[in-house]
């Protein structure tokens, strides 16, 4: 059996913790729960993360970097802003389908337990990778004349609030159709709302 590296073990902890936190809730989940799920001792767990709060912050950064990296790949493509919106929506919904724990964690833990993230994870600190990439997306869109110049947060809220809302409805099993079937109409709506007039 190949030896599992330290980095891989860390990733395993992150995956397990994401699942547990988003299923059971942040406060109910204990470190022994997580250690058990990864198959390691509690003592060994502390070699990776010294506290639950620190783990919680690392998880946000992990998700932010994952999203940021994926949006960066789209940003760097030589395609229209309209097409980029399609791809960002698609990427986001695929993530909700394939790794629902990431978005669940973001919506249900990060946004709902601000007291955990107050110290050292406030404002942009933990989500910088993701927000920066969206800034680049908006900046490029306005520079190329495809998007209307407006306040950043108005545009950001419209884009991410919309996607987050849809994923929330999906998680609550309220959506009658699979997420994928909304990609086209949602992309079109976002583009129509943001495009240059």
């Amino acid at each position, binding site marked *: 059996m190949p030896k599992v590296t330290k980095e891989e073990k860390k990733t395993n902890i992150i995956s397990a913790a994401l699942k547990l936190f988003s299923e059971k809730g942040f406060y109910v989940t204990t470190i022994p729960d997580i250690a058990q799920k990864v198959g390691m001792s509690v003592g060994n767990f502390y070699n990776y993360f010294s506290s639950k709060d620190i783990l919680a912050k690392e998880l946000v950064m992990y998700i932010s970097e994952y999203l940021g990296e994926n949006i*960066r790949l789209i940003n760097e493509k030589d395609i229209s802003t309209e097409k980029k919106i399609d791809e960002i929506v698609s990427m986001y919904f695929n993530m909700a389908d394939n790794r629902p724990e990431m978005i669940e964690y973001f919506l249900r833990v990060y946004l709902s337990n601000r007291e955990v993230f107050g110290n050292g994870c*406030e*404002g*942009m*600190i933990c989500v*910088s*990778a993701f*927000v*920066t*990439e969206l*800034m*680049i997306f*908006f*900046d490029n*869109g*306005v*520079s190329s004349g495809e*998007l209307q*110049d*407006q*306040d*950043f*947060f108005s*545009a950001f809220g419209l884009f991410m609030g919309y996607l987050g809302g849809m994923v929330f409805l999906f998680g609550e099993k309220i959506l009658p159709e699979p997420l994928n079937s909304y990609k086209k109409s949602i992309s079109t709506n976002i583009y129509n709302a943001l495009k240059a007039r």
Partner: protein
Amino acid sequence: MHSKQDKKLKILWFRGVTCNGNTHSFLNLPHLEQLLNRFEILYHPILESTLSLVEITKLKDKCDIFIFEGAYDPLMRRNEVLIGDIVTHYAKNAKHIIAAGSCASFGGIFKASAPQRNSGLIFNEDVEYGPLQSYKDRVINLSGCPIHPEWLSYVLGMILNKKEIEVDSLHRPIELYSNLAHHGCTRNEYFEWKVDADNFGEKEGCLFYKQGCRAPMTHSSCNKILWNNVSSKTRVGTPCFGCTEPNFPLTNLFSTKTNMSIPKDVPVGISKRSYLTLTGIAKTFYIKRLEGKLIDYKRDN
């Protein structure tokens, strides 16, 4: 008999389309007299000169240092002689050619009055163009609207000392133009922590976010070698307008161009991604000292 006078380098200062601002800025030089005593002024439009305008337009004399102020308009005549003939004649024989100010360097303000025609001596904005292409290796551009007197004094001093003046790709001396106008600005800490100036007329806050300041995108030593040995635009709350750059003058000079609140231009050589990452994080913190008044006067005196 050869007097010492004969050995002095001869300066000829000539004008194209100009406001004379470079001349008047140069006259502010604190050690003007000592400096000028080391040269012979063959011709200057205001200073006492060996020759008159009529005499120099006969194109019989030569100068060692040819200084040109103003934009080059090929249709302009001085004493009925086409300026192209005058400029070429003196440049051909001069060891050093100095474009004094942004108009002479890149076209500047007075390129705009005839954009299809006017230019600098060897550049039209940042494109190589203009009457002195054949002598471009000898051209030093001292861009700035106007020039700083110490910048010209530096170039003349280096020539007197027979020292090589290294220049950047736009022919500006690197010792003067490797700095950004931002360097030495008294508002630097506000830039570091991304604290905007709420308004004009305040000592506090950075002018980069709203008021249009171009200092982080502008090569010049304005906040290092102060104006009139006293101050600078940003120190008195005026945004830098980027007057040393080839694209001067831009438009909407008192407001920062943003795309969805994100600055269109970011500091020279820094990727927008890195800039935004740092900005987002810095903006997260509330620093009481930087949000309040530097000096809290009892405003009743």
